[in-house]
């Protein structure tokens, strides 16, 4: 169980005024969705929360300790991140990729044991990519690679899961499967915090929502309070029609 708090946090988006400082309490068991147009700083926020980018001001607290005071290895045992873009300059198999998730848990002389293998195998199975475990990563489709990246995070097994567009490249049924997996992880005490392009995924499955505006303004809170059609119209500068389906609001852009 881990909580992530931000106190007076202003993320460093070059050339943008400070805007509204973030004071969020991201608790264990919650599923957060970050919504905002391109360039609003969603990825920058995720990287700042993971301690990979310095904030312009304010701080991020992991279980009440400032991230800046913690060692990288210690942070990696508590916070994991699925990147939107990934490099693979060298060939690597799917299994090897999942196993690097164990890195923060192993000492320099240790190698991955049966237990680590089992965790990786289980994660690959949960994301329907276990049949690919011996394939090279660069031979996979975008959606398959996305699922391998999430399986790597699952193998890492941190308490706080940060995900940058986890449903990118995924087919509809895999989108639902991944979102259900994340919701189940939140139910067993993980903290889920993800950037989403799809407003309706957030409306349907997130317990909390953060709206990030291009000018640095922000507001956050429980999903049902935040998902006001007028706020969303302002966020995306796009007229929306709200309908209800399967017990959740669905936002549809108005044509013309």
């Amino acid at each position, binding site marked *: 169980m881990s909580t992530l708090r931000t106190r007076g946090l202003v993320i460093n988006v070059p050339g943008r005024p400070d805007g509204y400082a973030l004071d969020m309490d991201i608790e264990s068991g919650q599923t957060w969705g970050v919504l905002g147009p391109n360039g609003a700083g969603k990825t920058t926020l995720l*990287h700042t929360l*993971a301690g*990979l980018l310095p904030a312009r001001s304010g701080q991020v607290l992991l279980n009440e300790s400032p991230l800046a005071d913690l*060692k*990288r*290895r*210690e*942070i*990696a*045992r508590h*916070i*994991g*991140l699925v*990147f939107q873009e*990934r*490099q*693979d*300059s*060298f*060939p*690597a*198999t799917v299994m*090897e990729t999942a196993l*690097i*998730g164990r*890195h*923060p848990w*192993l000492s*320099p*002389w240790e*190698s991955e044991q049966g237990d680590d293998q089992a965790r990786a195998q289980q994660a690959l199975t949960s994301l329907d990519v276990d049949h690919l475990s011996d394939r090279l990563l660069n031979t996979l489709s975008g959606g398959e690679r996305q699922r391998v990246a999430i399986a790597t995070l699952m193998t*890492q097994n941190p308490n706080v899961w940060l995900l940058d567009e986890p449903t990118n490249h995924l087919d509809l049924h895999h989108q639902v499967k991944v979102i259900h997996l994340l919701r189940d992880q939140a139910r067993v005490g993980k903290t889920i915090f993800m950037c989403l392009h799809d407003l309706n995924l957030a409306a349907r499955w997130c317990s909390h929502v953060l709206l990030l505006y291009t000018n640095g303004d922000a507001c956050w809170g429980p999903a049902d309070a935040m998902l006001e059609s007028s706020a969303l119209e302002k966020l995306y500068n796009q007229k929306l029609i709200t309908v209800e389906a399967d017990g959740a609001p669905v936002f549809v852009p108005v044509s013309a």
Partner: protein
Amino acid sequence: MIRSLSVLCVVALLAVLLALALGSVTVSPIDLIAVIQGEGNALHRTLLWELRLPRTLAAFATGGLLAVAGALMQVLLRNPLADPYVLGLSGGAAVGALLAMLTGMGTLLISGSAFAGAMLATVLVFGLAHGTGSWTPSRLLLTGVVVAAGWGAVITLMLAITPSYKLPGMLYWLMGDVSYARTPWPPLIVLALSIVLVLPLARNLNVLARGPMQAAALGVSVRPLEWTIYILASLLTATAVTTAGSIGFVGLIVPHMLRLVLGNDQRIILPACALAGGTLLVLADTLARTVIAPEQLPVGVITALLGVPTFLYLLHRSR
């Protein structure tokens, strides 16, 4: 892992025995065994213990150093084309050595000057490519290539103003020649120490190969690791160049071939590079000594003939 390294050990041992047996005078296996057991005739003993063995060990150490340095730089730059020779480090060392030769310094000073040249080249290339931001692999590779061309011009200038009686030694040094090695022990010790030092970092390097952000997210302190690898790779290159002149492409061919067979786990690749790089240079040096015996070719010619097609093939395949 243990099996592939054992195979490489056996191959390395066979290559060393072959190098001992072949040359202007061929030593038969029976005589070879006799000498190893401390018997055999005096000529064979002198030939093997005092001439061929030191040279073979020096070739092995140089090859191993260059291959490990290449593998480290490739992970550091996340580019399989990186190599001490391509990045112009060998060029810097050559300028240092030639300058010492030109001014008539002794052997020890030539070695020292080559070492200083290699370190200077490293600082120059990495410093220029670093600029204010971080190392981008393409920028570093380009800087290396341009700086290498600069060293090339300085070398040509020095050769042009050198009295002709000094030229042959310089040319051999430029092309890389193991016969320059006085004693095999310093490079062998550096090679052994570096493998011991780098093995605990090998899993970190596997993660770094996925990119610095991903590595940081998995708990790697990226900046200190990058500096360690950079200094280590420069030190290995400088030691290799000081031992045997500028031998190209070993750092390119060996890690590439090994990755094709063994995958990209640095815990295997790095020790395997030491063994296979050593083996390659021992074999290349044996070829250089025997192909037009009693004349000798500089070993750098052989490695370049192997390396240039490999480099072009890699570049072609990476698009």
